[in-house]
């Protein structure tokens, strides 16, 4: 009896340790189960278009017509894929130089002002909800485009502009971190040789930090690719490949957002939407792997 009491006294320590270990492990297990079930469920639904409904993969990826309720029903997802890529890449093309300039400004030109004002500004941009971006896009950018350019104003250009503001914080933050992490000696050596600030930035800073800058750009594209509502609000959502930047288009996310609620689970039209989701998810993985690869190449 006395012995067992003593043993119990010594135990709380171990019990505590055990509780901590099990608790944290359970949390990690939850995380792992979650991601695997996301992949499993999205893939099983998305693949059933091909295995259950016998839609040809190539037809889906290269087809130009999306008529899920037609006779015969056509599931050509190329317009959506095209819309997603064009809006997100255009957005990155706009945001990358801006983000790079903002980063150089914060690190090289006016560090004090940058840290005090520009950085909070950029963090605020990151915090604004995407529906608000969509709303502003719809009520400012679209009418502006409608007045200035031919067409309705909605389309890939409007989507890309809205997205570029949304991904600017991602690109800027990563570029700033990369520039700030650059060893001082590198820049000082360049200045000592008589190079100007721009020559140093252009010839030394930019090439050395290029993998990190690319990482930021890819992360930005990934974010733009997955963004749903802001784009959906300004792009017009017509399922065809537009002939101009100011003509209504559609993306993978906007197609899913708009149609998922209108189709019954298990029907071919619904499964085809899950295939779009699967493409979206696979692209996310591709982006993650590109980022990993770029990070591995980083010289810093």
């Amino acid at each position: 009896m006395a012995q067992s009491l003593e043993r119990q006294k010594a135990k709380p320590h171990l019990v505590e340790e055990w509780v901590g270990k099990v608790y944290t492990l359970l949390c990690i297990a939850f995380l792992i189960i979650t991601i695997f079930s996301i992949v499993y469920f999205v893939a099983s639904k998305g693949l059933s278009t091909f295995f259950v409904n016998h839609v040809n993969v190539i037809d889906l990826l290269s087809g130009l017509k999306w008529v899920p309720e037609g006779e015969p029903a056509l599931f050509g997802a190329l317009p959506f894929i095209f819309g997603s890529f064009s809006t997100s890449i255009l957005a990155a093309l706009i945001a990358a130089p801006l983000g790079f300039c903002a980063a150089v400004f914060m690190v090289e030109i006016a560090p004090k002002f940058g840290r005090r004002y520009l950085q909070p500004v950029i963090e605020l941009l990151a915090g604004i909800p995407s529906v608000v971006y969509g709303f502003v896009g719809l009520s400012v950018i679209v009418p502006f485009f409608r007045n200035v350019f031919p067409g309705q104003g909605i389309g890939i250009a409007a989507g890309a502009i809205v997205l570029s503001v949304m991904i600017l914080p991602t690109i800027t933050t990563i570029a700033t971190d990369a520039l700030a992490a650059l060893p001082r000696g590198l820049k000082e050596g360049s200045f000592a040789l008589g190079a100007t600030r721009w020559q140093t930035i252009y010839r030394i800073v930019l090439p050395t930090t290029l993998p990190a800058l690319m990482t930021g750009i890819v992360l930005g594209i990934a974010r733009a690719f997955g963004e749903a509502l802001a784009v959906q609000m300004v792009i017009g959502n017509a399922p065809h490949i537009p002939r101009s930047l100011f003509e209504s288009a559609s993306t993978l996310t906007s197609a899913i957002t708009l149609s998922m609620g209108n189709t019954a689970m298990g029907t071919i039209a619904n499964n085809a939407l899950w295939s779009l989701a699967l493409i979206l998810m696979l692209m996310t993985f591709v982006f993650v792997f590109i980022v990993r690869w770029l990070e591995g190449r980083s010289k810093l």
Partner: protein
Amino acid sequence: MRAKTADKIATSVIIAVAALIVLVLAGLLGYILVRGLGHISFDFLTSAPETIRKGGGIGPQLFNSVFLLVLTMLITIPIGLGAGIYMSEYAPANRITNFIRLIVEVLSSVPSIIVGLFGLLVLVNLFGFGFSLFSGALALTVFNLPLMVRITEQGLKGVPREQKEASLALGLSKWKTITSVMLPIALPVILTGTILAAGRVFGEAAALLFTAGMSSPRLDFTDWNPFSPFSPLNPFRPAETLAVHIWKINSEGLAPDAAEIAAGASAVLVITVLIFNFGARWLGRYMHRKFTAIK
């Protein structure tokens, strides 16, 4: 001489771009506030929305957003803290840990609409939670977890080694060391991050379209029994949040003043985000001063 000219041009371009970014944000915030503030009134914030008539408010949506935020954080914080503690303190340096890190990274880049679809399939249909606040909170948990894990890990990694070692040397268990010595020190970082994550929950909409639903039942704000179907506190009722409402009235709003409602609701959303943002900064600085005794 030419190099100097190029330097001057480049510098001015960079300064101009920085100024442009500040202007864009100022314009953005100014536009939202100027257009929206005029429409915000006590009545707008508390009354129910109208579908076809003019003069609808955002009362239930605002309540739903706050309620959903609380529910989500109640689920996210314990799991995120636990997983973050594991990654920072328990995870051995091996392949499996690297794999878990990859998983966290992948999870953080999964688009929120995919999380929403997953919620629709698994939470709403398979588990039968239906379109409900609870489904929405779980989906947002998935969406927020990687962020929470990273915040916790960052906070714990910032704790000085000596403090951890001193506690262990006194014979405290590892778990006790983590919870009573390390977590309090890491708290400012974790809290700041958590508030920013909460701000994100408040504005999130894509994941909620398919989980919390796009409509609210008529809420009876006198009925506080959480099991009654019209009670605002019932977590198993469908709930349209503010962000979802903005999206909905912009895409299919029939009320004649839909644009004003969207402007007003956007202003409310942005003001909330600003409050979260400044609140997090202020709290982080305050706690840092308090805990580290730096004046």
